[in-house]
């Protein structure tokens, strides 16, 4: 066996038969100047066209190429997750398969990683996409994501990102979380840097995303917030959610009891209903505690991924264990 490479480039492909060869050539050209050992992990997300055939040809002619072929189309997040799982490098770089990212930027990512950052994300500051349907919604979404998750990144949607393998392999990625990987990774408290990258207009094929994502992004955001900041404290989180109910309910009941007027049915009724629902919310939180206890996510697993230990016994075990 060859030694594990230092760098893994992960590219998910879905029906990109025209792009795959130019992208391969661009990656090789860009990285051969950097003097690092590297591999390319091409994930085929159930393409129906010649993507797999071309990827297989590339793999045959270049042993640095590995192709992970899905049984069917699963979507971008599973493709990224599979690439991350099968990559062997210490530093993982993910990018889109549609030639909109420029592999020449990988050098910058590597530099940043060498400075000690755990995650480096790209920012398409000069984005070549449609303004109305792509850029404006994305800007709003990014502001919102930054606000809610506390990871202020200008461009969550940019696929060109670099991760320390030991960290990202432990972060659960599922459903459509690829847009939120830095936010999701924030459970481990990584050092995140953001750098400007080039962005090209789409050359081949059509964009595979539209406006319909807004509702899903909002819900996903809610999920991210719940699981990243409150996983270990579901009771607290649900209690917070129930606070307004509790407050309104108490106010209504107190008003009913204190007021000298005859009891108002709407006020008293709403008070009882609100109190009851607050109680059920808190119970849901207690249930969440049970779920957390039975699950296998623990904060200290994540803290270990990014910690730096100094002291006489710390040796070299600070990161990769």
């Amino acid at each position, binding site marked *: *066996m*060859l030694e594990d490479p230092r760098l893994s480039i992960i590219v998910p492909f879905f029906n990109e038969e025209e792009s795959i060869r130019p992208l391969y050539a661009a990656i090789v050209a860009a990285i051969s100047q950097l003097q690092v050992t590297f591999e390319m992990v091409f994930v085929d997300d*159930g393409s129906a066209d010649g993507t*797999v055939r071309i*990827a*297989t040809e590339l*793999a*045959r*002619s270049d*042993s640095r*190429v*590995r*192709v*992970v*072929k*899905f*049984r*069917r189309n*699963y979507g971008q*997040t*599973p493709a990224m*997750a*599979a690439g991350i799982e*099968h990559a062997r490098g210490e530093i993982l770089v993910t990018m889109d398969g549609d030639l909109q990212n420029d592999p020449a930027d990988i050098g910058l990512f590597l530099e940043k990683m060498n400075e000690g950052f755990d995650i480096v994300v790209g920012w398409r500051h000069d984005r070549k996409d449609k303004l109305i349907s792509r850029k404006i919604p994305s800007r709003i979404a990014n502001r919102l994501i930054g606000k809610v998750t506390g990871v202020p990144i200008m461009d969550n949607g940019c696929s060109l990102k670099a991760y320390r393998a030991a960290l990202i392999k432990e972060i*659960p*990625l*599922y*459903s*459509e979380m690829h847009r939120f990987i830095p936010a999701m990774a924030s459970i481990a408290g990584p050092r995140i840097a953001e750098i400007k990258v080039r962005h090209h207009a789409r050359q081949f094929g059509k964009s595979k995303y539209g406006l319909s994502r807004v509702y899903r992004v909002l*819900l*996903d955001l*809610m*999920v991210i917030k*719940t*699981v990243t900041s409150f*996983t270990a404290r*579901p009771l607290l989180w*649900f209690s917070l*959610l129930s606070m307004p*109910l509790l407050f309104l309910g108490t106010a209504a009941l107190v008003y009913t009891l204190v007021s000298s007027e005859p009891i*108002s*049915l*709407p006020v008293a*009724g*709403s008070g009882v*209903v*609100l109190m*009851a*629902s607050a109680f*059920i*919310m808190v119970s*849901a939180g207690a*249930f*969440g505690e049970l*779920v*957390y206890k*039975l*699950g*296998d*996510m623990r904060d200290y697993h994540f803290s270990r991924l990014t910690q730096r230990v100094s002291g006489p016994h710390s040796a070299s075990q600070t990161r990769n264990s």
Partner: protein
Amino acid sequence: MLQHDLTPQLSVIVPVGERYADLREIFDEYKTGLTAAGMTWEMIFVLDGPHAECEAKLKQLAACGERITVVGLTRSFGESTALMAGFEQSRAEFIATLPAYHQIDGNEINTLVVGLSSADLCVGRRWPRRETWSSGLRRVAFHRLAAWVTGMPLRDLGCSARVMRRRVLEEIALYGDQHRFLALLADRQGFRVREIDLRQSPKDNFKGGYRVREYAHRVLDIFTVFFLVRFTKKPLRFFGMVGVSTFVIGLILVLIMTGQRLIFHQPLADRPALLLSSLLMVLGLQVFALGLLGELIIFTHAKNLKDYQVERIIEFETFPTPGGGGSSSGLQIGSLVDSAQPDS
């Protein structure tokens, strides 16, 4: 090739539940069909509950030197569990499930097996069908509904004749009433599924379709499966949608009534709509909270739940040759999926 003789090519699982015909007759019919298919096979009967009479018959068959395995379950666990119990005893690379009553013509087993050359799972569809026009209508309506809800146009969910590669059942642990939807679950796992027309057995004497209660059960099953395949990975998508819409309806009602109270001075006290709207809002919140809890469960178990199935990893390791042009002499080390085909 002694090993080859010991491990049969096809394991046939026959779950014996509430409905069964004369097992000896069934066995003979299947045996004829299997022999015609030209494969080595074993047959596993799973007695789902105490069926003393069947057990006796199977003992007789075994005494006659037939190659059958009998798994006896102490109580009735349901067909899915029976299938899994039978699967545990099976050894062959290809698995068939056949009903313990007359559904398909035994000679059609070969048709099913041949279908595996381009699929991982073949499910039978009895066609042409002998039935009254009313039961036919009900059948079509039911399957249309199922197809619409699940997004997969299967046309005979009641047919228990299936043939599959071993890894289908290895990956899909059936429970409850899921055996009916094996094709759908397999499709979601990325397996290639085919529905194959089979001749109906002349003795398939199931009369008059299902009763209403049965249909209610089946429809509930469909929704269970729908939920399982669509929303298990993102509960908030479902609960969130229901919760938010309920909440918004309640909110709109409240706003309308508040407006009427403030502008038209219409008293609130005698309006039941007030309670309704507050209940709707609260209900919406609760449902949303349920979705969040679901997400919490998914997240805490995310390491064990894999979203995707890798068909294979294609990689070639080239050993550099001194000439430098050794790129074509690749040695494949990837774990290519077996391409075993049934004899056909």
